[in-house]
């Protein structure tokens, strides 16, 4: 029982960055932007938070838990917002190719993250040996006191830092907004058929900008969670790995539904760590780690073969919109 609880606990921790990334990418893709820059944006979000936290930790004697959370959080949002704005400017205003722009953003973002992760101390001539924000991480990892008293139930439900719950809340809000509000309806129309949306009086470019920037900021939080909570505030270059791409895979896996992204992300998180909990020879670990991608390919093929219209990618995904080409 304890082991199962541990497994679920670890899966949820693994799945949370993915959930942020997937929710952000779903919002973005619903506006018709296939943002392949999300992996880069998650790096930028993470390192921006780290930089903010680093300044706070090194420049103040007393660490106020509230500020310790707030400063990195705001820095993370600002960093991801700026990169998302760049993506929007290039693809929406300048109508550049989305694939190329996204990949360039990822190249830049991953480089940006690793560069500052590896060189921040050097640049600032700081005297700390390495980039560890343990005190800040402690604030992020604060869990309710009663969790440990509840046994497995506490482990599964109450033993996380606030960002795990925040991810769920954001995904639920995204789901409600997309499904039940006017804004969501308009956003979906923009991603499906921008010409129709335009004719109905919807400002297509504004929706694309707002959705993509919000999506980027949400994804950036995934990076922040990874450093501050999952890695205890210790930055390691390329430590975040390919989770950004995995988040894009989840978007397909959950057929563009944020509500499904919650279990979907945890499921992928579970697959990620499954080998620790089952008795398989070391050799087969890569095969198990391959599963998320294989499952995603299977879903992608199945939805395209079945041709159920509701499960298809937004129809105008990846295309820039130019009114005069109607």
């Amino acid at each position, binding site marked *: 029982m304890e082991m199962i609880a541990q497994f679920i606990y670890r899966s949820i921790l693994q799945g949370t960055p993915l959930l942020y990334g997937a929710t952000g990418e779903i919002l973005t893709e619903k506006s018709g932007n296939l943002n392949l820059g999300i992996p880069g944006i998650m790096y930028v979000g993470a390192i921006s938070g780290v930089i903010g936290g680093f300044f706070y930790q090194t420049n103040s004697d007393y660490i106020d838990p509230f500020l310790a959370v707030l400063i990195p959080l705001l820095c993370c949002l600002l960093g991801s917002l700026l990169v998302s704005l760049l993506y929007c400017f290039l693809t929406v205003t300048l109508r550049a190719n989305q694939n190329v722009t996204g990949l360039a953003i990822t190249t830049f973002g991953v*480089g940006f993250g*690793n*560069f500052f992760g590896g060189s921040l101390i050097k640049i600032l001539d700081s005297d700390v040996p390495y980039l560890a924000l343990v005190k800040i991480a402690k604030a992020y990892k604060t869990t309710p006191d009663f969790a440990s008293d509840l046994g497995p139930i506490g482990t599964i439900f109450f033993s996380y830092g606030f960002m795990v719950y925040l991810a769920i809340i954001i995904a639920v809000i995204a789901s409600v907004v997309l499904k039940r509000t006017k804004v969501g309806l308009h956003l979906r129309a923009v991603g499906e058929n921008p010409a129709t949306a335009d004719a109905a009086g919807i400002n297509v470019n504004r929706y694309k900008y707002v959705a993509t920037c919000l999506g980027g900021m949400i994804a950036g939080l995934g990076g922040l969670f990874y450093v501050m909570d999952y890695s205890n505030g210790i930055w390691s270059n390329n430590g975040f790995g390919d989770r950004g791409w995995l988040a894009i895979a989840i978007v397909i896996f959950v057929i563009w539904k944020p509500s499904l992204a919650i279990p979907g992300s945890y499921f992928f998180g579970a697959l990620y760590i499954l080998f620790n909990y089952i008795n398989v020879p070391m050799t087969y670990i890569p095969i198990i780690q391959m599963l998320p991608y294989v499952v995603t390919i299977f879903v992608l*093929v199945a939805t395209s073969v079945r041709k159920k219209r509701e499960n298809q990618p937004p129809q105008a995904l990846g295309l820039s919109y*130019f009114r005069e080409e109607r």
Partner: protein
Amino acid sequence: MAKVKQHTREPLFHITKRTEVPLKSSVLVRTIAIVLALIVCGIVTKLFTGDNPISIYKTIIHGAIGSGRFLVTIHELALLLCVSLAVTPAFRMKFWNIGAEGQVLIGCLSTAMCMFYLGGKVPEGLLILIMTCMAILAGAIWGVIPAFFKANWGTNETLFTLMMNYVAIQLIEYFLKIADKSGSNVVGPNLLSHGWFPRLFGQNYILNILIVVVITVLIYIYLNFTKHGYEISVVGESENTARYIGINVKKVVIRTMALSGAICGIAGLLLVGGSSHSIDSNLADGRGFTAIMVSWLAKFNPITMVLTALLIVFLERGADEVSSMFGLNADFAEILTGIILFFIIGCEFFINYKINFTHKKTEEVKEGK
């Protein structure tokens, strides 16, 4: 006669697509963009190193083509160019293959497997031949799988090829676990000791470079002077025209992706058999993604691609030198590459679109019915 009414909410400017782009102005716009980007790169570098700009550019140039580095830079160029050439036929067809990384890796894997399992058991010459065939075959298969689904069911190729990359990575990891029981992340030259490409003129890499030169010429010829290349262009430009002249679009899609994958496979062969003699899951080093940008920047022209690939490699090698000189992280290169890319991507707009300011009384643009 009625008075002409003033538009009440006329926008300040009006954007139209250019029908004609004179070569001169497109070269000019791109040159300006690259110069601006280099200036910004210089400023960014100065911010982090405090060095003066002239000396920074010197360091970059030294890093790229300084003594003893020239051949390595050319080899890097060759490898990136090879992958860029590989993705080009598919892109000309408007098939957004972002799975070159995986196609290269699967080529690496099959090459390494041949070296590992057949090394010492067959003559070296034959081994290299088998390696070549297997790398081509593996890459082609990796390219055809998404193409098959795209051609038959319209499965989104961008997402499919992206996923295939990670399947390839994990397959390599699997091989690493089998080949090297020590649990290391790389299978090195000691285990892959056979099937190395011969050194030409007493130098490493020369054979690799020559092979890429040949591929460049062949791809150029294939795209511009063969019937297949012509069909690719027609399918990419207009599927309706392809239908009108009776081209079998499905066949062309699958055939072209097989070719794209096969060349990626060759790139994998060059990486493992021709240079590193080792394999790990990061061997392609993002070239599959960089290649997409290189190919796109060159407007899918194999000859221009030599220049765009050179630009990227030059910058990466130069930035490497800058970062190592100032004790900065090597990822500095990615930041500079990113900046250059943003400028070039952005400048395309000014080549393809025209901004008409309203006060000049713009001409009405006729919209389609």
